[in-house]
Structures are given as C-alpha cells and as structure tokens.
C-alpha cells in the first residue's frame, strides 16, 4: 500500500461543538469523550467543514434521521471534503438508493445473506480462522490485525462472490483508497473504483460463457419485477458495495473485540469458561465499539429532535455515538458482556439495515470462538502501539499482542 499517498491534513479542532471533524486524530484515537461533549451540547451539532455537515448525537436523533428518507437522501453516504456531481444512479445500490428504487434493489441482495445461508458458510469461515491461527500459533508476539482480523472477512466475501481468496490484498488496498484516503483525495478514490470495475467486469464476462455457483452469477441471473436482467452497471455497483461494505467493517469489529479482550482478562476468562455467552458478548462489543458511521444528505429542510436542519448539508450518521447514549443504554460507557437488553444500532436502523449483518455476526462469533479456544492467554504488547483507522469505519489497524508464555 506504500504507493498510495497520505491525505491532506485538516486544521486541528479546538471547538468540537461548533467545528467537529471525524477525521481529526483525536477523534480517531478516542472518540468517546468527544461524543459525550457533543451530546451534552445538543441532539444535533453542526460543522462548516466538509462543505457543511450536521451530526445527530443521541440515539433518538439518529433513529429519526435513519427513518426519514424524505428529508435525508442516501445518494451520498460518506462525508468527504468534496461533493462531486452524482453521475450514476447505480453507484452502489441499495446502500446509495432512496425509495422507491431502494426496496427492490435491497430485496435482491437479501436471500444470500439470511442466517440460514450464513450457517452454510460458517464451516469455511472456521477453516479460514484456523488456517490463519496455524500460521502464528507458535509465535510469542504478533500484530493480530495484520495476521488475523484483516484476513477473515475478505476471504469470506471472496469465497461467497466466487473470486480467488488469494486476491485479498488487492481488495484491501481498494478499500483503504476509497474509505480512508478517498475522504480527502478524489483521484485516489476514482482510481480505486476504476480498478475494481475492471476487475469485476472481467469476472462478469467470464461467467457469461461459463456460469458458476456463486454470488456474482446469482446477481447476473437475478431478474427485476418485469423479468428483465439487471443492467451490468447495477451488478457492478452491488459487487462494489459487497466488497467495500463487507471487509474492513467486520475486520474492525473483530479487531476491536480482541483489543477489548486483550485488555480485560475477566471478560476473556468468562468467555472461555462460558462460550455459550459469546453471541451475547458479540452484541455488546458491537454496541460499545460499533465500527460503521454512515452519512445522509439533507434534501429537504426539516427539524430533528427540535433542531432545524437545512439543505446543502451532509449528515454524519454516527451509529457508534448513538450506541453510547446513556439515555438508551444504562452504563453506556461500560462493556457489559452479558447485557440482556441491547437494541444497538451497529448495523443501522430503518430501511438501510446492513445487508451483511448476519454475515458479520457469524464471522465475529467464529473468529472469537476459534481464537479463544486456541489462544486463551493474550495481552497488548507494551512495546507496540495500537493504531485506529480514520473516518467512516473505526477499528484497530495495528494490534500488537503478546501470546501465551510471552505475557
């Protein structure tokens, strides 16, 4: 990834309430106190950065916006420095679609991602986790992001799409260019999109002569309500979405979970003693360390939790901040791994609920189960530094661990 230049710096933030910036290093490192400060100030705050952007700070305000596609469009879903003209209505359906085109595009993608479909994929994910662990089980120290969390979702989604798992590094590079560098550098984003389009076009062409039993062929064979096949641009857009949305999101969630467990021996020991608690713990880790922040664009003036919002602005739709709202979650700032009531919004709320939520949950459960089974003892390496990704998806990108007897 060394050939990709670093994005331009923003001026440092000194007034979070009136000038917030989700790409500021302080936010990247430790956003939780910032969100508390913003929430205490107002249910909706505003910044002039990013050509004007609001942020709802409470769970309720986030829910209001997520459920209101009349005033808030999904045509732009990343808050960036620039807001170029939208040239294609098929940019990444259904995540970039509004009603009424959203529903049919979404329904098309749902059947391959049901919990039952995920059960069929689970053995492959378990095998991927164990292949990765085999590669470092004898070592004393490692970067768990580089050697473990990073590889699980990308290989799983490659397996589903029917593309070589060995192309994983290519996909990870594109995602870094789109989700991180692309916030401030349009050319890098366009280059990644172009490369992805070329890659998937070749896979689509190959399947026109020789259909396969995978998600790419599934989309190529899909028909709309009038019985017509999807335009190639729709298939390409959805493939782009699956790859982008399915990789560093879950990679981040698995990484944050292991980071928490490395620092919290009581939780780790409890999950080893009671593995049946892992699914409940996964929900709590999703709440406390939700990776994904989405965006909307204000297309019609309205109010949110009593605050006026005006057109021409973006909205930073922070599900992670909503999930830390103490009005919604008692002890919101604590990780309670057996929390019984947990309506967290890590996968969004409303019509844009993450298509891959069942996949992500399965991957997180399996990744934690297999890790804890084989590596019960691990801790953060005091000689290393944990680094977090910037912007739309938050998770550890370097996760230095000591394993077993090295601790």
């Amino acid at each position, binding site marked *: 990834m060394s050939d990709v230049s670093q994005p331009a710096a923003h001026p440092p933030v000194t007034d979070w309430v009136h000038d917030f910036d989700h790409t500021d290093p302080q936010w990247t490192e430790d956003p939780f106190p910032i969100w508390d400060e913003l929430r205490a100030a107002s249910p909706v705050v505003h910044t002039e950065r990013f050509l004007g952007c609001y942020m709802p700070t409470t769970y309720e305000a986030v829910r209001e916006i997520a459920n209101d596609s009349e005033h808030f469009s999904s045509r732009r879903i990343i808050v960036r420095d620039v807001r170029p003209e939208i040239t294609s209505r098929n940019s990444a359906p259904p995540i970039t679609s509004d009603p009424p085109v959203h529903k049919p595009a979404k*329904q098309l993608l*749902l059947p391959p991602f049901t919990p039952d479909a995920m059960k069929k994929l689970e053995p492959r994910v378990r095998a991927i986790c164990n292949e990765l662990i085999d590669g470092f089980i004898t070592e004393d120290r490692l970067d768990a992001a580089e050697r473990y969390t990073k590889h699980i979702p990308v290989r799983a989604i490659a397996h589903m799409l029917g593309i070589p798992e060995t192309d994983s590094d290519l996909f990870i590079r594109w995602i870094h260019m789109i989700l991180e560098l692309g916030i401030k550098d349009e050319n890098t984003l366009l280059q990644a999109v172009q490369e992805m389009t070329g890659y998937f076009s070749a896979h689509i062409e190959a399947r026109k002569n020789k259909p396969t039993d995978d998600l790419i062929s599934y989309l190529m064979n899909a028909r709309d309500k009038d019985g017509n096949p999807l335009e190639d641009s729709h298939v390409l857009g959805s493939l782009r979405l699956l790859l982008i949305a399915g990789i560093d999101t879950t990679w981040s969630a698995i990484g944050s979970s292991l980071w928490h467990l490395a620092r919290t021996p009581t939780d780790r020991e409890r999950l080893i003693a009671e593995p049946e608690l892992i699914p409940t713990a996964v929900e709590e880790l999703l709440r406390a360390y939700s990776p994904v922040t989405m965006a909307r664009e204000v297309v019609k003036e309205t109010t949110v939790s009593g605050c006026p919002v005006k057109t021409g602005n973006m909205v930073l739709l922070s599900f992670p901040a909503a999930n830390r709202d103490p009005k919604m979650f008692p002890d919101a700032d604590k990780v309670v791994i057996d929390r019984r009531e947990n309506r967290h919004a890590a996968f969004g709320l409303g019509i844009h*609920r993450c298509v891959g939520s069942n996949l992500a949950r399965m991957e997180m459960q399996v990744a934690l189960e297999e890790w804890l089974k084989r590596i019960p003892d691990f801790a953060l390496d005091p000689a290393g530094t944990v680094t977090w990704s910037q912007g739309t998806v938050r998770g550890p990108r370097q996760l230095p661990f000591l394993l077993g007897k090295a601790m």
Partner: protein
Amino acid sequence: MTERLRVHVDPDKCQGHARCKALAPELFELDEYGNAHEAGDGIVPPGLEDKAWLAKSNCPEIAIDVIEE
C-alpha cells in the same frame, strides 16, 4: 390463572435484524429475505415467556409486541 403471552411482529417495522430469531427461535420465523414473523399464531408456550420479553427488548426497530392475554 397465569396470563398467556402472544408475540407479534409488525411487518412494516421489521427490517430483518433477526435478533428475535437468534434469541427465541421457537417463537419467530424468517422469510426468504430474512424478515421476521411470529411462529404460528404467536402464542408463547409455557416456559418461553422470558424469551418472548428478551426478543422484544432486543429488537432495534421496536417491531415486536408481547401481548398479555
């Protein structure tokens, strides 16, 4: 006499998070899109009351009603 419980999923609110199916598989079913509806007539068999309340309190869309009859 103890009250009988019945669960109901509002299909207009359900977005297919599938939390109810994970927490109370006996009480809910999913369709081909992964959206939930109550199993059968929604009546909660004795012993599963706790699961009914758990499903309700974990639905992010507030789509589940537990009705005491």
